[in-house]
């Protein structure tokens, strides 16, 4: 996609500067000066890339084969070969952090994608005041940070929290109707959420779902890009609502779904702020909230094991790359309209 645009762009640009006396030299000089200007424009990015991206990536790769506490200066770096990676094999906290992150990702990605699509479908209905609701659904995702983590800390309080209060109220309503028919009471008691290792992951998933408005907006944009004629044609062919969704909406939306899938997976591998605030920075209780990035942070900036932390970060990098590649490999379900046109 990007490639096509670029070719189109340069084609239009090349049309100028022709039809002069000596087109060859003039154009060449023009091209050279344009390239020079371009690189001047790019200078900030190039500097930033070398200093904060390319350089650090290589240095981090080097560090991942070394031991270093960071305090003893660059001379304190000790090359240890594959030791850091060998250490991971016996590091129980590393194993726990991988487990936590994988469980969280496996639960939150499908749910937030399904929820995002569902809400986007609703937001795509032609109803009065729908723009207001779009704003409402997007609202929580701008509040992602320490403040909303605080808020959720109290929402998850077992005895006084809003969530368990809601569960109790719901239970009373249900029991009211049950009592009409049967002489029994069903007990509705919310779990301990953040205090119970078995429920911690669920709590984080709920929080993530609440703040997932930005993917909803991207789905919505995708839905609005689907031509109306396709639905009209489907209706003429006698397709019902479900069939239209299955055979028109889903295929047409699949590039956007794919885009969101990749972003959501990468994002959920990197959950940090909420976990840092809600677990007191150490992944408690029982390391159930020791998500991978939090573990990297602890190793690097609490224990000053910069070498080990770099190895952990590089492992994450490689995993993110692999997972993204795998997703591309199995992206046969994605339907690109451009394919038909050639």
């Amino acid at each position, binding site marked *: 996609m990007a490639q096509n645009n670029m070719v189109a762009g340069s084609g239009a640009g090349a049309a100028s500067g022709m039809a002069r006396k000596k087109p060859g030299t003039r154009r060449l000089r023009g091209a050279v000066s344009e390239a020079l200007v371009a690189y001047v424009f790019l200078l900030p990015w190039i500097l930033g890339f070398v200093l904060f991206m390319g350089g650090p*990536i290589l240095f981090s790769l080097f560090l991942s084969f070394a031991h270093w506490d960071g305090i003893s200066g660059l001379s304190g770096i000790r090359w240890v070969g594959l030791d850091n990676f060998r250490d991971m094999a016996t590091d129980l906290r590393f194993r726990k952090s991988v487990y936590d992150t994988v469980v969280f990702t496996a639960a939150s990605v499908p749910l937030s994608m399904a929820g995002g699509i569902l809400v986007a479908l609703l937001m795509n209905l032609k109803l009065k005041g729908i723009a207001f609701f779009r704003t409402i659904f997007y609202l929580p995702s701008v509040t992602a940070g320490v403040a909303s983590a605080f808020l959720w800390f109290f929402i998850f309080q077992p005895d006084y929290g809003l969530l368990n209060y809601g569960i109790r109220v719901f239970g009373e309503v249900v029991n009211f109707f049950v009592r009409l028919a049967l002489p029994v009471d069903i007990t509705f008691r919310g779990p301990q959420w953040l205090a119970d290792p078995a429920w911690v992951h669920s709590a984080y998933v709920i929080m993530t779902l609440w703040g997932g408005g930005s993917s909803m907006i991207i789905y919505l944009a995708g839905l609005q890009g689907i031509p109306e004629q396709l639905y009209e044609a489907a209706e003429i062919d006698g397709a019902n609502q479900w069939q239209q969704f299955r055979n028109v909406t889903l295929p047409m939306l699949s590039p956007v779904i794919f885009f969101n899938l990749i972003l959501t997976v990468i994002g959920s591998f990197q959950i940090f702020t909420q976990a840092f605030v809600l677990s007191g920075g150490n992944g408690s209780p029982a390391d159930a909230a020791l998500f991978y990035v939090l573990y990297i942070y602890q190793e690097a*900036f609490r224990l000053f094991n910069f070498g080990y932390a770099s190895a952990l970060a590089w492992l994450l990098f490689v995993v993110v790359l692999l997972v993204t590649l795998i997703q591309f490999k199995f992206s046969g379900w994605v339907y690109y309209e451009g394919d038909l046109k050639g």
Partner: protein
Amino acid sequence: MERSEAFGFWASKKRLAALRKGLALAVILALSLTMVVPLLWMAAISLKAPENVFKLPPWRVDWRWSNYVDAWYPYGRPVLTGNLWDDLKAVLFQKESFWWYTWNTVVVTGLSTLGVVFSSSITAFAFARLKFPLRNTLFVIVLGTLMVPAQVTMVPTYILFAHLGWTNSWLPLIVPAWLGGGAFNIFLLRQFFMGIPFDLDEAAKIDGCSTFGIFWRIMLPLCVPALITVAVFSIVYNWNDLLNPLIYIQDSSKFTLALGLNQFQSLAGDKTNLMMAAATVVLLPILVLFFAGQKYFIQGIATTGLKG
């Protein structure tokens, strides 16, 4: 006639459509409540007396505005002397009050956002409108950086800043913004620049406009909505960012709101009403900004998503 029309309605497709619409509306309302209720609860607790914080029902409010004053000065209210000038100084410039955190955050967010808008737009302009060798390769690299987890570069970048002596200052939070402005923003702005007709550049060039002039006087004004989108993204990101300030800032007089709020937890962890007041204070500017800029904001995300 009337009866049959009424009957016709109840049996017709129209009725089904109306029913479906009503159902959709009910689901939308219920879901939006779950979006808003937590925020309302936060505001409600922030106005409660301490003994009522967890009293039910949750929406009982005491309207105790003094909570906000107490949250604003977590280390105690300023001591007033009666001298207007001294009092004003005490009230406004008390260190480690939310005045300071807010001021710090405004400076960091403002300077970073200026940097992000400037450097990402100039980079995007080069990629969208200029021809130069290695353009495609470099752009693929830009997109590739989207995939690099921030944690990979975290440690070396910290070491770099430590060697420059920049830790415990805001420079590590601001300088990177001026150098590139983020792959996502570059990508978003490039999409916008690509959509502007090339005739404009040509006409300006014939009129003797320099390349920078084309960028500054023609492209940027045309891209104001996209620039606002990028600015709002950057403001929201910097306002909420915890990880970077946490790594670089130790001196509490340099804390940003996110750090100050995090600190507040250990200070007033048992004073829930104060914590919620502080959280509300931190969220409020972002919410106001969001409502002011939501049109561009949502449009901007939508554009990127589609072209992805």
